[in-house]
């Protein structure tokens, strides 16, 4: 920057140089500097804020706290991980969380697939934009409002679900795993429908026609033509629903009764024992890394 000069360079400057800003022409002659400065901000953001905080998380996980004041002591230890590995409560909560996230993903796929199919292939093209908007509508409402309305609905005896089930001699399942899975499925469903919709819309009609011409019935076409093309979209949607469920701790607090997920462990411990909370927080990170790695091997990430 210090070499910026108001005059155009004397040697070999083209005729239109005087109209260009001197700074611009300087950058024109230094493409590498230009590129670095251009990338500095986004890369700085990525490295410092995003990767930096992740790195900080891992570093913190190896620290410990003063047992009385809760102040962090920066001394290296494996104690936090040893405790997670030896206390059965923590692998129980990890398995429970993964189970809930998997259930939410499967449910979202089962509900999302027919909806996306209808939107992309059955509904009149003029209606599609409206349907997409409708699917997105819940995202405009506050997360908390939606979760609290599910709390009211799941209320034993007086809630809507109890009212619906009472004629069959059943009561609302109350607050617990079922309520948590239902609420999370509702919350993250749009994130599953949208990639599926985009994927289905991309399938050319000619492929479906060809399949039918060759004598395949609907089921066969779905299995052999639609699903292979749709697979990457399904995986993309599952990444959203799975990871969002894995990290959630507020929904389960509101509709989960006494149920706890990994996020709750972090929330419970970060006030008193931040390093331990950090160690617990690495579990979902590891689960996601494994998940993404498995997904990458299917090639789904290349099609996002």
């Amino acid at each position, binding site marked *: 920057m210090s070499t910026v000069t108001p005059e155009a360079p004397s040697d070999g400057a083209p005729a239109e140089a005087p109209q260009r800003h001197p700074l611009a022409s300087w950058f024109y002659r230094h493409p590498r500097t230009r590129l670095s400065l251009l990338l500095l901000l986004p890369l700085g953001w990525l490295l410092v804020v995003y990767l930096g905080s992740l*790195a900080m998380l891992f570093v913190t996980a190896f620290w410990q*706290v003063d047992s*009385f004041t809760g102040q962090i002591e920066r001394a290296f230890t494996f104690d936090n991980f040893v405790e997670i590995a030896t206390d059965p409560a*923590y692998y129980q909560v990890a398995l429970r969380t993964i189970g809930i996230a998997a259930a939410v993903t499967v449910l979202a796929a089962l509900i999302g697939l027919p909806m996306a199919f209808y939107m992309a292939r059955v509904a009149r093209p003029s209606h599609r934009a409206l349907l997409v908007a409708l699917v997105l509508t819940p995202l405009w409402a506050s997360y908390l409002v939606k979760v609290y309305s599910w709390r009211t609905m799941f209320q034993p005896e007086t809630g809507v679900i109890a009212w619906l089930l009472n004629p069959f001699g059943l009561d609302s399942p109350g607050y617990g795993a079922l309520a948590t899975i239902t609420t999370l499925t509702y919350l993250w469903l749009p994130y599953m429908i949208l990639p599926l919709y985009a994927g289905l819309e991309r399938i050319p009609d000619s492929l479906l026609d060809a399949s039918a011409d060759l004598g395949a019935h609907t089921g066969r076409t779905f299995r052999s033509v639609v699903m292979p093309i749709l697979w990457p979209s399904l995986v993309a949607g599952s990444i959203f629903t799975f990871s969002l469920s894995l990290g959630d701790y507020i929904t389960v607090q509101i509709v989960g009764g*006494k149920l706890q997920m990994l996020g709750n462990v972090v929330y*419970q411990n*970060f006030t008193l024992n931040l390093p331990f909370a950090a160690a617990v927080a690495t579990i979902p990170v590891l689960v996601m890394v494994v998940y993404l790695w498995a997904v990458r091997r299917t090639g789904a990430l290349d099609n996002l």
Partner: protein
Amino acid sequence: MQISRLLKVGATGAAVALLAAACGSGGSSSTPSASPYAGPVGKGEGTLNVLAWPGYAEDGSTDPAVDWVTPFEQKTGCQVNVKTFGTSDEAVQLMSGGGYDVVSASGDATLRLVAADKVQPVNTSLVPNYADVFAGLKDKSWNTVDGVNYGIPHGRGANILMYRTDKVSPAPDSWAITFDPNSPQKGSVTAYDSPIFIADAAVYLMATQPDLGIKDPYALDQTQFDAAVALLTAQKAIIGEYWSDYTKYLQASKAGTTTVGTSWQVIQNLAAADGTPVESVKPKEGATGWSDTWMVAKDTKSINCSYLWLDWIVSPEVNAQVAEWFGEAPANEKSCALTADKDHCATFHAGEEDYWSDVYYWNTPSEKCLDGRTDVKCVPYSEWSKAWSSLRNA
């Protein structure tokens, strides 16, 4: 290739920066010393950030008639920002983060804040209303360290057993209804979601299992501690929901999904005001409770506003208002004459030391037994917190 090299350079840079940050801020644990503010208390600095239990610093937003913050602002010119917390652990964590000038700390937070060097000694001679505080609250182990006062007593109360009168009958007089695996309220019981709740189990064991020899619910040796945790593990089967957010408790109580459990007087008052039929009792086994202290942050930039606040909050009029709103015994003796309900101090046993004999104020358990035993090691609070986390997540 270009990009990946750039990434590498950047990553190295970030790692170096991290390392520098990690090393640079180390060694912050100095011994708590410092002298209290010499005074005189001058003009306010303009703003005051208050960290308080819900109900301690009301500005009319909960109930327009309940407001002692606005008059303070008008009188002193100190703009008050209030942040509330749900557990003592949260208070300690928020204070450690900084940015607050005064805090209403319970006995299980005060000593931790002193030890962590987050609060400063308080010069009680700069707080004129301190003279009228009950002698029974002054110079106690939770607000005074080595003869140095670290705060102004605010008030005290017991963690009560609250129940829905229409769903729980006969009216309970024992914590048994919340601990018995065959409780008639199975599935609708609530408990306080904090490690300190282990002390509530210990209080119950003091009465029901005298063989354990528990003298102080915050001084538990390993055997006593294990018994308390076992009781809580068994209790989990009859719990519907745990609470730490009192608004959620209010909703659950109103809906009837929670019918009985530990509570605060202020929650009962709010629930009753909302039309929920609730009553409460201090059970026969005794109860845990709190004796709160207003403390001043070590690094406050509003020292004058802080002292003005300390004096304001324990002034006879305001302390009476707070005590009545929150449902606790005031700290200021003169407040008793100023409460709207003239029997308030009698109802809350403000001056009766007898009543408080089976109320065990929140305290911070440490390895050195608080009850004076020297032949055993007690379970420190860090272990309480681990046990609670393990119990809740199993």
